[in-house]
């Protein structure tokens, strides 16, 4: 089958590559409309304060100012991306909950005037105590950040149990109990968020925005602005980097819409870099306690995980994030029984949300570091241990997730072999035993491994419904071109290109013949958005279905003309014909004309919704995915014992992609994920002091440059998953997961210090080495857990080892429908 592909599997340039290398791509902030005004938001300088009064009169009097609004000019309705967390206001009316909360907005003749007007707005605040950590928020129930949730300052409290974990642990040869901390960090897209709103004289609103979820923004804008959704059009401009940071409806988008409505002009609001740090929705800081049992041979007997998430000031996707810190873990290795307890705590910091890997890098770090410790105690090689305990393909996990294909074993083999794992493991360990005199440079090499799994698209939408998660319309043109309409949003991952490649493959065209029109709520069928690694799979299957329907219609017409059976017809090289009689094959354009003459307009839909196989328990909707990707990573590094400096020498990553629809794009996603993981492991952290973000700038918030990014050796493993389009799984998030624990494990291998906290900085290495010298446990990590009562767990029978549900309901899958 693979040999028969003409487009799939080719390292083709992205269809938008040419615009991007010439500077022609128009991002949201590149849009300029006639009479456009410029907006600015006034943001809170307090981490937590009551708003006593806002006086905008001086700002309104400034020449060049068109309008100044506060939350009182907007419908008094709270919103949030998740139906269960409606806790945000675009402009705060009663209280601010973090530095950076917006309280007023200005539209003016230019940005400078808008800025000056913001400084003329007088806000009277009554400061309240600011709670800046999980510990503080739980220790001060008398200070309430929100009035809702599962307890004072507790947004969400969940507990799930699949089988009797205590009994399993009691019967184990080894039980390890470890505590880890993963510091929060941010997406840091190079493009700052921007929006242009135009409320036209016809009473209709158009919003162009750098958003990853035009559909959700569309849905929520109607409610937030109290306008009929039918009169709102949301267009996602090409996004200059998302990583999960552009998935919520934001204050600047809403304010631009309202201001445009009031002043009768288009309004642009482009956020500054500092504002992007406040918008955030990034990686949750997570404190973790994990207790896992092992047999003498290394099999996992059971696992009990507790997570505490620092959610920041608002709900955002946080309920989902909380579940994600627990539910994906059992997908990787055999885990017969499993218990998970998680709590998300509100703090007075920018709200956390989904960042690449959404809620899973933190527990992945914990689990993979703990496996490394267990392997050492059991006298097993860490790579061999992982290979021994791989999850079985086409089975269910303890928590009722259906796993299809698994390429993790092959991924581990690839990185072990390519890295020279066995030789280096022994050689570096031997070298570590030799001591060097103080006057010599004391650099130590280490090599570490980790594995991981990630979902290929969330099995459920953010709001409950039975409609498609992704829709595509294909339209054939008499010229021989094909147009694809799809709500998907290209954030750089290449979704527009996938939407050209797959119909081109089905119809025997060149991708250049396919015109893709994405992400416009008035033109394109809904796609839920660029999150949860769902786009290639869901849009891909929908696009194949739509293109196949078009092909079937054209084939009928051509078959009648050539007097052959439709099944005999082949579509390739822009022609349609019978393979044995290819000289008579007709150009695709002519075939379209015949098709249009027979059927009328040639436009066909494709729809996709994931198979319905969520576990039948409350909370079972988070975690199911059509299929899971797998990755294995080996990191080789050098630690300087004098300075604590960590230099990454090489990273080997193998990723189970199902099928690489375009290997170039897959490699790009894998390499980008590794890079981002390296940043999280070694330098990126959101740090606060006295309520203030310590470094809301690109210079002080450290992220890897070319110099800190080591050579990345990428291997793609193809498992041809039955759920994916032509067998493809995700690539954009999963490969980030293993690199962080692989780095921590390699540091231990190099210098014998356990790093149970990220980011791992040189001072932490030196502290660990000092502890080692003193003969104390050489471990850097959290040493206390909050006093906290989790809910009584929902006890569900473990589904571990049950066969995958092959007869799951697959909505919209019938090709003849």
């Amino acid at each position: 089958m693979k040999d028969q592909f003409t487009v799939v599997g080719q390292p083709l340039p992205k269809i938008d590559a040419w615009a991007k290398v010439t500077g022609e791509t128009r991002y949201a902030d590149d849009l300029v409309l006639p009479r456009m005004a410029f907006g600015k938001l006034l943001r809170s300088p307090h981490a937590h304060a009551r708003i006593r009064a806002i006086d905008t009169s001086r700002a309104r009097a400034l020449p060049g100012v068109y309008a100044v609004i506060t939350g009182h000019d907007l419908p008094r309705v709270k919103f949030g991306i998740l139906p269960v967390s409606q806790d945000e206001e675009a402009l705060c009316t009663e209280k601010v909950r973090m530095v950076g909360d917006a309280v007023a907005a200005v539209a003016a003749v230019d940005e400078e005037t808008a800025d000056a007007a913001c400084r003329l707005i007088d806000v009277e605040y009554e400061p309240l105590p600011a709670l800046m950590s999980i510990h503080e928020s739980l220790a001060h129930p008398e200070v309430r950040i929100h009035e809702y949730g599962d307890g004072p300052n507790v947004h969400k409290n969940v507990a799930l149990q699949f089988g009797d974990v205590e009994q399993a642990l009691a019967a184990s040869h080894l039980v390890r109990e470890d505590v880890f901390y993963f510091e929060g960090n941010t997406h840091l897209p190079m493009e700052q968020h921007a929006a242009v709103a135009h409320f036209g004289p016809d009473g209709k609103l158009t919003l162009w925005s750098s958003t990853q979820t035009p559909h959700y923004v569309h849905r929520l804008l109607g409610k937030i602005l109290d306008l009929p959704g039918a009169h709102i059009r949301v267009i996602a401009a090409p996004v200059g980097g998302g990583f999960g940071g552009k998935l919520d409806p934001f204050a600047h988008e809403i304010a631009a819409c309202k201001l445009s409505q009031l002043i009768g002009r288009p309004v642009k609001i482009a956020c500054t870099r500092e504002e992007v740090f406040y918008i955030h929705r990034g990686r949750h800081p997570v404190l973790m306690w994990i207790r896992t049992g092992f047999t003498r041979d290394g099999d996992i007997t059971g696992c009990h995980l507790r997570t505490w998430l620092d959610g920041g000031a608002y709900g955002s996707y946080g309920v989902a994030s909380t579940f994600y810190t627990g539910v994906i873990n059992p997908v990787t290795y055999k885990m017969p029984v499993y218990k998970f307890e998680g709590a998300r705590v509100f703090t007075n910091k920018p709200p956390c949300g989904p960042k690449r890997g959404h809620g899973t890098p933190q527990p992945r770090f914990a689990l993979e570091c703990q496996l490394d410790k267990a392997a050492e105690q059991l006298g097993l090689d860490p790579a061999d241990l992982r290979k021994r305990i791989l999850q079985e393909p086409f089975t269910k996990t303890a928590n009722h997730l259906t796993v299809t294909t698994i390429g993790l074993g092959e991924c581990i083999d690839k990185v072990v072999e390519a890295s020279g794992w066995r030789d280096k493991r022994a050689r570096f360990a031997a070298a570590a035993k030799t001591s060097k005199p103080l006057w010599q440079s004391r650099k130590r090499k280490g090599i570490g491994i980790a594995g991981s799994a990630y979902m290929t698209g969330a099995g459920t939408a953010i709001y409950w419904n039975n409609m498609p998660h992704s829709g595509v319309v294909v339209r054939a043109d008499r010229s021989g071109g094909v147009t694809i309409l799809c709500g998907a949003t290209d954030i750089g991952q290449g979704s527009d290109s996938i939407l050209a490649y797959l119909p081109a493959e089905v119809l025997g065209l060149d991708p250049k013949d396919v015109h893709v029109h994405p992400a416009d709520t008035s033109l394109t069928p809904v796609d839920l958005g660029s999150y949860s690694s769902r786009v290639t799979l869901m849009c891909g299957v929908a696009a194949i279905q739509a293109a196949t329907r078009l092909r079937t219609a054209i084939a009928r017409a051509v078959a009648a003309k050539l007097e052959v059976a439709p099944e005999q017809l082949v579509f390739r090289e822009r022609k349609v014909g019978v393979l044995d009689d290819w000289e008579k094959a007709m150009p695709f354009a002519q075939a379209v004309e015949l098709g249009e003459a027979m059927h009328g307009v040639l436009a066909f839909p494709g729809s996709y919704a994931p198979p319905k196989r969520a576990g039948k328990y409350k909370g079972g909707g988070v975690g199911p995915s059509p299929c899971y990707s797998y990755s294995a990573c080996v990191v080789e590094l050098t630690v300087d014992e004098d300075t604590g400096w960590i230099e990454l020498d090489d990273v080997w990553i193998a990723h189970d992609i199902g099928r690489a629809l375009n290997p170039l794009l897959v490699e790009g996603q894998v390499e980008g994920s590794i890079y981002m993981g390296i940043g999280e492991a070694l330098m990126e952290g959101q740090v606060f002091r006295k309520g203030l973000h310590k470094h809301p700038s690109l210079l002080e918030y450290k992220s890897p440059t070319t110099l800190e990014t080591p050579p990345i050796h990428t291997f793609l493993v193809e498992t041809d998953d039955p759920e994916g389009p032509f067998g493809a799984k995700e690539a954009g998030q999963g490969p980030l997961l293993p690199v962080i624990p692989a780095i921590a494990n390699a540091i231990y291998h190099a210098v014998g210090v356990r790093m149970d906290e990220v980011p791992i900085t040189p001072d932490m290495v030196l502290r660990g080495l000092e502890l080692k010298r003193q003969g104390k446990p050489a471990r850097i990590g959290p040493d206390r857990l909050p006093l906290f009562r989790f809910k009584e767990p929902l006890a569900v029978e473990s589904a571990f080892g049950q066969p995958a549900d092959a007869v799951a309901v697959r909505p919209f899958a019938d090709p003849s429908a």
Partner: protein
Amino acid sequence: MKTRITLTVNSEGRELLVPVHKTLLEVLREDLGLIGTKHGCELGECGTCTVLVDGEPTLSCLALPADLEGLAITTVEGMARGGELHPLQQAFAELGAAQCGYCTPGILLTAQALLADEPQPSRGRIREALAGNLCRCTGYTKILDAVELAALRMSPSGSRV
């Protein structure tokens, strides 16, 4: 206060009347419509807004047009020759070195300046030259590959690579 200046951008003379404190980045984008130059921080920290001034990579968010009269300013729009892309642009497109594409113009121009000074740089030299340009998508790998490919194609023997 506004000032009248003449800038040479992509080999064309442009007369402008702009506030003295307006940055080159703002003038390029807002007054000349050259939106290919992007802003990532406007504080000189990320390299996104890099343009060439007399061939030298320059952060346009920190440069004032009044200082640049008589100097040759090159933006990403000035890289192609007529309809023919610069070998760097071609290589970046072919190898997937532009994902979201937002940092791409600044990186292309920085690489162009490097190749003008050192037609056959080592990978280490390319890494050094691009260390001031942040990219959050690619992990830099494909970018380094693309600069190497362009350098090879621009060498006398490499025109057919």
